[in-house]
């Protein structure tokens, strides 16, 4: 596609529910990143994929967060048993191996 796409654009969920956020990177971009943007913490790096592999998952905020990437393309960020502090905008970016990161529009998550 022309740019990084993310879905849904907005998600409202109840505390304790699971949510899945999707990122579709730019075609041909082998690197993919997830970030979280919140009022209190600003922009935080969560996880990086090179192809389907994520070498370091320590940036994920808790064990309720997981991410996967299949076929070197689409990635899913899953949050289990959502908490109110998970409310934030989740941004995805993709790049060529040594290229600029291009960001998607984000998914705005609200946990009630």
């Amino acid at each position, binding site marked *: 596609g022309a740019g*990084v796409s993310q879905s849904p654009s907005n998600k409202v969920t109840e505390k304790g529910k699971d949510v899945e956020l999707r990122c579709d990177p730019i075609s041909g971009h082998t*690197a993919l*990143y997830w*970030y979280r943007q919140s009022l209190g913490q*600003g*922009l935080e*790096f*969560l996880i*990086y994929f090179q192809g389907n592999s994520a*070498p*370091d998952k320590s*940036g994920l905020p808790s064990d309720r967060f997981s991410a996967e990437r299949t076929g070197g393309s689409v990635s899913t960020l899953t949050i289990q048993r959502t908490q109110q502090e998970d409310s934030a905008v989740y*941004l995805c*970016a993709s*790049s*060529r*191996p*040594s*290229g*600029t*990161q*291009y*960001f*998607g*529009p*984000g998914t705005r998550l609200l946990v009630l």
Partner: protein
Amino acid sequence: AQSVTQPDIHITVSEGASLELRCNYSYGATPYLFWYVQSPGQGLQLLLKYFSGDTLVQGIKGFEAEFKRSQSSFNLRKPSVHWSDAAEYFCAVGAGRSGGGADGLTFGKGTHLIIQP
């Protein structure tokens, strides 16, 4: 650990006036520095980046930034702002030309730019 400080949370500038947004970084190796802009409801757009060489870098939309190693700074400037420049501006540091790899980008808290008519 690497960090980025943007001392100004908000800046108000009159349309047509010059602009300087401050950014200070802490990084143990050669820094790769970036400025991104975010308009309301939008993702981040890269304005410019510094890897090496000439310390004054030109970006899109008439922006430029100057890398000063002695001051650990990478301030963003524009000679004359337009109303459409109103947005949130983020300075970031990272490893490698994409600022990527396993550590991703480290962002400052951002500066909210307000343009007065």
